[in-house]
């Protein structure tokens, strides 16, 4: 992209006023902001690390060395844990656990929450009832919700998954309903109904695309909250079952050895912060791209 091509680009801009995939095109704007690029590079690095973990560390997260709770060295950059396992390796495998969790749970929460929020268009009374139910979920602090779920299905991956899905429902549901309420009386929606298009089709084809922007931004913000839900539940000991590492589980045991081996907490803590930072920046960039229109 040299300076000479700038006029040429400006000329083509007018021709391409209506790109073939307008929504996708708009979201590609994320790549044009500094925050968006930083977020994607950071996230890309973390995902690559997590994906490559089995290749980089073929021994897995359980490989033990001779010394337990050894300080940082050339062989073990962050030292070793109470069983002589490399903390850096466990941190990267923990990152893998966290990423799998949020990549599966947040979209499920987004999808179910959005559908729940849009039910009001199909049946007004049902919509109101769903909102009341969501209000009650919203009133319960996230960690307490997690404890309740652990109580019913037991601690572990699925409890974390459910906690993240359920805690997100009110946020997505209320947002989708707010969007629905502003969109359903717009001319295009009323016109489609008058033309005899079924409510369900109007909802999916016309209303949903118009409420999707704030939902995606919220999904990015909620991902940060999801990371913290995992960490909070794991720190109190109700998260992923050992020996599988997660960032929160590492902080849980690391906090016990903070006096002797500070890197045990610092390593997972920094990775957790970077992960949260990546999604915060991404939500900022998405927000900007969505509002550009």
């Amino acid at each position: 992209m040299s300076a000479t091509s700038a006029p040429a680009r400006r000329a083509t801009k007018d021709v391409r006023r209506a790109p073939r995939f307008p929504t996708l095109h708009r979201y590609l704007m994320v790549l044009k902001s500094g925050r968006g690029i930083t977020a994607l590079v950071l996230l890309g690095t973390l995902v690559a690390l997590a994906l490559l973990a089995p290749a980089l560390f073929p021994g897995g997260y359980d490989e033990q060395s001779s010394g337990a709770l050894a300080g940082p060295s050339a062989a073990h950059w962050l030292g070793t844990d109470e069983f002589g396992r490399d903390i850096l390796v466990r941190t990267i495998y923990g990152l893998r656990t966290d990423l799998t969790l949020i990549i599966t749970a947040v979209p499920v929460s987004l999808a179910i929450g959005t559908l729940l929020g849009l039910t009001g268009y199909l049946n007004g009374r049902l919509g109101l009832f769903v909102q009341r139910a969501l209000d009650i979920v919203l009133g319960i602090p996230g960690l307490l919700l997690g404890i309740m779920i652990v109580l019913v299905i037991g601690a572990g991956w699925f409890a974390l998954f459910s906690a993240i899905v359920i805690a997100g429902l009110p946020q997505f549901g209320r947002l989708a309903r707010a969007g629905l309420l502003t969109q359903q009386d717009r001319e295009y929606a009323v016109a489609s109904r008058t033309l005899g298009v079924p409510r369900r089709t109007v909802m999916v084809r016309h209303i949903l695309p118009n409420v999707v922007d704030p939902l995606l931004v919220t999904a990015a913000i909620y991902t940060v909250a999801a990371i913290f839900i995992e960490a909070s539940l794991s720190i109190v000991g109700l998260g992923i079952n050992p020996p599988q590492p997660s960032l929160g589980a590492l902080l849980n045991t690391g906090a016990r050895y903070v006096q002797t081996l500070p890197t045990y907490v610092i390593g997972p803590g920094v990775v957790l912060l970077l992960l949260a930072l990546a999604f915060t920046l991404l939500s900022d960039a998405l927000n900007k791209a969505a509002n550009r229109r």
Partner: protein
Amino acid sequence: MIRYLVRKLPSVVLVLLVTSVIAFSLPRLVPGDPAALLAGPDASPQTIAAIRAELGLDQPYVTQYLHWMQGLFTGDLGTSLQYRRPVSELIGDRIGSTLELAVLAGLLLVVAGIGLGVAAGSSNRRWSRFLTEGTNTTMLAMPPFLAGLLLILVFGVALPVLPISGEVSVLSDPVIGIQYLILPAIALALPMAAGIARLVQTQMRSVQQEDFVDLATAKGVPSGRIYRRHVLRNSLGPAVVAIGIRFGDLLAGAVVIEAIFARNGIGQLAVTSAQASDYAVIQVVIVGTVFVAVMAQLLTEITLAALDPRIRLA
């Protein structure tokens, strides 16, 4: 105000009722027979039936629920299966620890949140705005547990000036007790204070644009008085609402903070009970937490009306 409270009563009761039903249903959602679980693997059917009768599990759910609710109102909170002690005793032993933490954190939340917000919203010097906004953004992104771990690393490990683990009751020994309390309370309060500060700041900025501020300036009101009487008072509304809403989060955050700082409070009780499937304890903790959160929100609305006479509690 009494009329307002009476009008508000139905929705408060509804929330508490739904919460109590959820708390009551939790153990019944678990697959398997709790009586059989309690009796152990080799118990005879007679033993299991006896336990079931003793726990009242052979009665219809509605009767069980009413019985449980009656207990909650009369102070009979049930018996912990894990500790084999009355739940009221277990909670009584630990509530002091959590109260100390929550009260100090709540105070810090209000003072630091509003103080930082006012500092950022009223000063126009670039460096002070940069400083407050910088700290706000950093803390905003940091959940209580990370703030706690950071404080432990800085004030417990790098410069060991404060204790980072355990507790001493403030009532029995104020000087030592406050030392144990200060890091957990800061960790719990600061991230939320950052959110409150940001609200106050943006609100103050927009209130400063209002006509009545210009009018006051034109009248010759000293600028300090304008800030105190006109800007500040009109800026605190959203912050008060946010503090009320976040109070439940403060209690939930206390659970994690207690775990990190090895404090033996209600949060730790809830966690160990969840690990041991000790339902009797958890049910009470859930209902109690939601009760406190609802009360905090009621208090918020009363405070809001006191701040702004245009809001009538009728």
